[in-house]
């Protein structure tokens, strides 16, 4: 078997899968190499919130376009991934939080997010489930959520439909550069391709290492809690000013409680342990925001791994010094923005000018100056 692919994508999360999908639809012969089953790491276990109110300011333009993609998932992905578009509220309970919220919402609004500040009383009209202790709320109509656990199923069908050679349960272990491109070593043999995209989530650091590139990636261990099915207690996506709560109730009745509270784990072992005190803290915030929630029972809690660069902005673009090699990931709130950013990269690989700038990693390499924004 000596097929040479136009493109080999390594890592089948939302970034790798989207990139592979659009490259294949653009006419390329694509292999997608995934260590386990598709979208079973961050992209399958995340909270599925599609919100502007937790998105980094620099990513708002991307997130808005990505939100529209999610809302239309049945059209481009062939599956709705359980996406519900609804209102979102970010709450402030104290004077200090009011200040924080006004500042943060203001910045996001400047970047294009349609966030309005409304009084606690008005917020109660938007979301009758919230506590009457709310003093101020950020109100955004571009919000919603997906059923993240359906992501793998959705992409699997779409990728096979687009003719991508899907290599699941196939860990890659290195890359050799060859005259005509790259030889990706896997447990079951070598995959040759003219171009590669490294889309390994928190594992892009070791992947870049294969090519001699040193890009430190921090691993966040995000905890999540889900309740059993309960009667409707809320109808919007609810967060708090500092971003440490994300809360919504799915149509089938379960409520997912998140907000980035950290558990224990690392890249090698995965998310190995949850911190009980932080589950309690997260749950207290949730019940403070939606008091009726206290009658529910916790069904399950887990942790997933999220990648972060030194400046917490994406690593998405060409790899400096290595023609035809690209990296795609480390997008903050990357489930929301991932499809759009990965699609921009696919455009670039297909030779089109991306509609918005990418986030090349040059800014993060060999220099102490990690504070610069996107290029």
């Amino acid at each position, binding site marked *: 078997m000596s097929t040479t692919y136009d493109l080999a994508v390594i890592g089948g999360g939302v970034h790798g899968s989207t990139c592979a999908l659009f490259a294949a639809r653009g006419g390329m012969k694509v292999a997608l190499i995934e260590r386990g089953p598709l979208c079973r790491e961050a992209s399958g276990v995340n909270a599925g919130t599609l919100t502007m109110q937790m998105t980094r300011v620099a990513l708002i333009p991307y997130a808005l376009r990505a939100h529209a993609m999610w809302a239309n998932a049945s059209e481009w992905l062939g599956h709705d991934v359980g996406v519900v578009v609804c209102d979102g509220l970010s709450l402030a309970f104290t004077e200090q939080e009011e200040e924080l919220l006004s500042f943060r919402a203001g910045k996001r609004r400047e970047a294009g997010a349609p966030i309005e500040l409304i009084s606690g009383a008005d917020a109660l009209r938007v979301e009758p489930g919230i506590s009457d202790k709310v003093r101020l709320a950020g109100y955004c109509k571009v919000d919603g959520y997906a059923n993240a656990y359906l992501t*793998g199923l959705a992409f*699997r069908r779409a990728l096979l439909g687009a003719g991508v050679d899907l290599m*699941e349960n196939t860990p890659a272990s290195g890359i050799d550069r060859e005259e005509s491109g790259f030889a990706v070593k896997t447990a079951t043999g070598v995959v040759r391709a003219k171009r590669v995209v490294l889309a390994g989530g928190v594992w892009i650091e070791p992947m870049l290492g294969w090519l001699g590139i040193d890009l430190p990636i921090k691993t966040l261990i995000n905890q999540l809690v889900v309740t059993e099915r309960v009667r409707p207690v809320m109808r919007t996506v609810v967060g708090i000013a*500092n971003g440490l709560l994300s809360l919504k109730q799915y149509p089938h009745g379960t409520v997912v409680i998140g907000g980035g509270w950290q558990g224990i784990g690392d890249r090698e072992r995965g998310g190995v342990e949850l911190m009980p005190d932080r589950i*309690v803290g997260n*749950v207290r915030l949730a019940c403070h925001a939606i008091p009726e929630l*206290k009658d529910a029972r916790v*069904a399950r809690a*887990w942790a997933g791994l999220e990648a972060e660069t030194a400046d917490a902005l994406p690593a998405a673009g060409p790899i400096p010094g290595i023609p035809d090699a690209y990296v795609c990931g480390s997008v903050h709130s990357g489930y929301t923005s991932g499809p759009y950013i990965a699609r921009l990269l696919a455009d670039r690989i297909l030779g089109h000018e991306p509609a918005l700038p990418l986030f090349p990693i040059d800014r993060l390499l060999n220099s102490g100056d990690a504070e610069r924004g996107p290029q």
Partner: protein
Amino acid sequence: MSHDVIILGAGPAGANAALAAAETGLKVALFDQQPEAGGQVWRAPLPGLALPASPEKAGGDALRARLAASSVDLRLGRTVWSVGAHFRLDALGPDGNETVEAPRLIAATGAHERVVPFPGWTLPGVIGLAAATVLLKSHGALPGQRVVVAGCGPLLAAVATGIVKMGGTVVAIVDLAGPGDWLRLLPALATQPRLLARGAGWALKLGGKRVPVHFRHGVRAALGADAVARVRLAPVDAQGAFTAGPEITLEADALTVGHGLVPGNELPRLFRTEQTFDRRRGGFVPVLDAFGRTSLDGLYACGDGAGLRGVLVAEAAGQLAGLACAHDAGALTAAAFAERTKAPAAAAAQARPFSDAMAGMMALRPAQVAAIPPETVVCRCEDVTRAEIEAAYDDGARDLNQMKQFTRCGMGPCQGRFCGDVAGEILAAKVGSREKVGTYTARPPLRPVPLADLMGSFDYGDIPIPRPAPL
């Protein structure tokens, strides 16, 4: 560290582990969700309920008396919701959350019921055999007035006897096994004369009542508008597959049915210790040394949760695990350990033929799973049918967790405890083996806990809020 060893589960295995470890001077904490020690087999009646004497109650009372007289820190009526490494355990009790820590942890969490689904199995009036024993032993209540007792293994006789004793009517016993299967076990059964005598007691009591027994039959369907009213039976072959032959329909207001037990091995799975699939032992079980040590330092397992072996082995295995803890903690010399483990090791060995025979009768029969109709619900928490599980396979799901993500099968409050074994078998029939299909990932909490209890009372300002993400 608050203790030397924490034990989860106060049945015969856990209670004996606690006593053995405490006798060597270790500081032991023993947790159970039930208000009294004893586990399933020696379950105590609810407070205020005076039930007639029985060997189970006597065995349980003796164990409870020994625990009360020991130095074991009894933490009963606690819902354990979080178990962390090295080891920290959080439980909800009468005074809110309790945290204990110890360098060693023994999992003695027992087994839960397996019901291989059939049409109508989710109707009101259909309950498990093990659930029926709880009803009889703890609540002194009957599952119904006219009860069909169906399934396989020794619980059939136990439940039927219990019902008769309490004045209920057993319409029939429906046993997947045939009389020949039981007869073949006689030599093994004879190794435990005490239990054989009790078995004979069942036969006598039931015989007096002339309860019809349908050997080599299975439940084809439970029928009824909004509760079970009739039970349809059909003959099965030695593998548990339905065969051509006359069906029988019985009128009944309850059906107790169970097809063996599945080890409750969530704790070792939570810590991702090595496990192996052992059909006779009920499914996936942790890999253990002769004293119950798992592949993770400091974590031990014993009793039915570590593989079905029954009460006699559970007692011995509990003592061995307790002694192993004591030895590993430096509270027993190698010589003393060798000396003290002799008796329980011998008891376990002696009980083995009997426990093997019983476990064999309760092992999951693949042909029975193959007979589940496509539209029958397998995961009752999430209403997922056999056909939906197979559709997930067609969509590329090759292991249980992937299938769970495609279908929500196993995502409910029981975390797949009740469907995992059967769903695994359905998927394995397509994928090739149970090993490839694996188990659902175990997640905290071990049992569902109310948010209200978890959060307790608090001031908003006191919630320790981490640093916000960058803007």
